[in-house]
C-alpha cells in the first residue's frame, strides 16, 4: 500500500513514478451504504465546526439573548411574575430559538453549492440524499447545544421542570424530530435560491410569523378569534403544547402524536421536493 519502495517525492515536488505507483493500487472498494455516506458528511460538518468555531455563535448567543429578553420584558405583565412566566415561556423559547436556527441549514447548503466542492460530491456514486442528510444530522448537534444553553440558563433563573430529567429529554427529542423535518424546507429553498441574502429574507418571512404568532408568549384564548384559529393550527403551537406537557408532566399522547404526524408530513412533502430540485439544479 505504501509508496516508499518507489521513487518518493521530496516535499513540494511531484515524482511521476510515485504518482504512478499510487495510481496502480487505487482499487475501488464496495460502495458505502446510505447511512455510512450520511455519517461521513456528518463528520465533515463536525470538522468544519472544529476549524471555524465562530459558527457556533448563533446557537449559543441567540438563545441567551432570547431567554433573557422575553422573560424580563413580558414576565411581569403577562404572568404576574417572571418566575411563574418562565415555567411556561421557556419551552416556547426553546422551540422558537431552535426553529430559528434551522434556517442556517439552508444557508450552509446554499454556500456549499456556490463553491465547487458540492460538484465533487454530486459526481460521486453515493446515495444522493446523503449530502443533505449528513449536514441535517450535524445540525442536530447544534440544536442540542442551543437547547442545553437555554435549559442551563433557565435553571439558573428559576426554571423547574416538574417531570424531571426524563420529561426534559423527551421534550428535546421531540423538538429535534420536528426541527429535522422542518429543515427540509430550508434545504429545498437553499438549493433553489440564487443568493444567500434572498434565502435569508424568505426564511425570515416564514419563521417570524410562524414563531411569534403562536402560543409561545401568550395564551391563544386572549387573541381575536381569527388569529386564535391560526395560532391553534400553527405547528409551532402544537409542538410547544406537547413540550410543555412533557416537561411539566401533563403530556397528552394525542398532542405528541400530532407533532409526529406533522413532522412526518413535512418530510414526506419536502424530502422528495428537495431531491427533485436537487437533481434539476443546473
Amino acid at each position, binding site marked *: 500500500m505504501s509508496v516508499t519502495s518507489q521513487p518518493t517525492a521530496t516535499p513540494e515536488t511531484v515524482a511521476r513514478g*510515485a504518482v504512478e505507483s499510487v495510481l496502480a*493500487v487505487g482499487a475501488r472498494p464496495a460502495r458505502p451504504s446510505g447511512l455510512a455516506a450520511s455519517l461521513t458528511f456528518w463528520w465533515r460538518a463536525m*470538522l468544519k465546526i472544529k476549524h471555524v468555531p465562530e459558527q457556533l455563535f448563533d446557537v449559543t448567543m441567540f438563545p441567551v439573548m432570547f431567554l433573557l429578553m422575553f422573560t424580563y420584558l413580558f414576565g411581569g405583565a403577562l404572568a404576574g411574575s417572571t418566575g411563574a412566566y418562565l415555567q411556561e415561556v421557556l419551552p416556547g423559547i426553546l422551540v422558537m430559538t431552535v426553529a430559528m436556527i434551522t434556517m442556517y441549514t439552508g444557508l450552509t447548503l446554499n454556500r456549499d453549492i456556490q*463553491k*465547487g*466542492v458540492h*460538484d465533487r460530491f454530486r*459526481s*460521486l456514486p453515493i446515495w444522493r440524499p446523503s449530502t443533505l442528510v449528513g449536514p441535517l444530522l450535524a445540525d442536530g448537534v447544534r440544536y442540542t447545544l442551543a437547547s442545553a444553553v437555554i435549559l442551563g440558563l433557565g435553571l439558573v433563573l428559576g426554571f423547574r421542570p416538574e417531570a424531571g430529567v426524563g420529561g426534559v429529554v423527551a421534550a428535546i427529542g421531540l423538538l429535534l424530530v420536528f426541527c429535522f423535518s422542518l429543515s427540509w424546507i430550508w434545504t429545498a429553498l437553499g438549493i433553489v435560491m440564487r443568493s444567500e441574502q434572498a434565502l435569508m429574507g424568505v426564511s425570515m418571512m416564514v419563521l417570524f410569523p410562524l414563531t411569534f404568532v403562536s402560543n409561545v408568549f401568550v395564551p391563544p384564548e386572549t387573541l381575536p378569534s381569527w388569529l386564535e384559529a391560526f395560532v391553534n393550527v400553527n405547528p409551532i403551537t402544537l409542538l410547544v403544547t406537547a413540550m410543555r406537557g412533557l416537561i411539566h408532566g401533563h403530556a397528552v399522547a394525542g398532542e405528541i402524536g400530532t407533532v409526529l404526524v406533522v413532522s412526518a408530513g413535512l418530510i414526506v412533502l419536502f424530502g422528495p421536493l428537495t431531491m427533485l430540485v436537487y437533481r434539476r439544479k443546473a
Partner: protein
Amino acid sequence: MTPSESAVSVDGLVKHFGTTRAVDGLDLEVATGSVHGVLGPNGAGKTTAIRMLATLLRPDAGRATVFGHDVVTAADEVRSRVSMTGQFASVDEDLTGRENLILLGRLWGHTRQAAKARAADLLEAFGLTEAAGRQVKTYSGGMRRRIDIAASIVVTPDLIFLDEPTTGLDPRSRNQVWEIVRALVAAGTTVLLTTQYLDEADQLAERISVIDHGKVIAEGTSSQLKASVGTGALHVRLLDPQQRGQAERLLATALAEPIRLEADPAALSATVSDPRRVSYALSELADAGVEIANFALGQPSLDEVFLTLTGRPAEDQSVDRPDGEPPSAPTTEEVRA
C-alpha cells in the same frame, strides 16, 4: 470507431442557459486509454460540456455515453468510473488537505484505516505531506491544483476530466500537473482535458477537438490540424532587425506567399505550400547580404491553426498567460545558421 472502444461518445449535445447556447451540437469521440484535448477560448462551452459528461448538468438535447453508459439514464454507472477535477476549487477549503482526502476515501467506501493510508500515500506522491495538516485555503495555486487532482484519484478512475488544469499556474507547477497527467495515462486512465493553451494540447493530447461557440470546429491529431492549415511554415530570425523590410520583400517574391512580421522585430514568418521554394528563398537572402540568426521550417503552430479556423488569433484569449511564454514553436527541423 465503435461505441465500445470509446471512453466517451458524444452526439449532438446541446445546453442553453436562457438565450446563450453554451453547447450547441457538440460531437466527440474519445478513445479508451488516450488523452483527448478540448481546446477553446473563454466561453467556448468547455466547462458546460464537461459538466454534462460528469453527470452534473442535464443536456437539453443530444446524447452522451461514457464507457457505453448514458450520462442521463445511467448516471450512477458513469459516476462510479469517472472523476472530475473542476475548473475551480473542488475540495473543501475549510478542511485540511488530509481531511479532504480521507473524507473522499470514506465516501468511496474505504474503511477509516484504508482511507487514512490512501490519503497519506496520495499526499506523499503529490509532494503535499508537509502541507497536509493545513486548511486548503492557505495553499498556493499550484498546491491547490494538486490537492484537487489528488482528490480525483482517491480511487483510480477509468476516465478523468480535467477542466483547465493549468490555468493560472506558473511554469513549474504546470510541469508538475503535466507529469501527473502523463502518470495517469501510464496507469491506463483515459484523460479528457480542456485547455486554452495550444502548447498544452500539443504537449499532452493525442487528439484535439477545437471548439468555439459550443461546436467542434476542427478535430484530429495535432499534426493533422496543422496540416489542414498549410503544409508548413518558415520562421526566420535576422541578425539585424534593420534588414527586416528588405528581407520581407525578398521572401515575398521568392515564396510567392504573404509574409507575417512577428512581434520580435527581427523575426518574420510565412506559410509555405511548396517547401522546395524555401532553400531558394534563403539563398536569395544570403545573396542580398541579409544575415540570418536562425531559421526553422516546420509545421504551422496551433496558433496559426486557430487563426485559420476562427479568423481570430488565439492570443486574444490567452493574454492572461501567467508565464508570458510564447505558445508552441514550430516542431520540426530547427536549424541554426
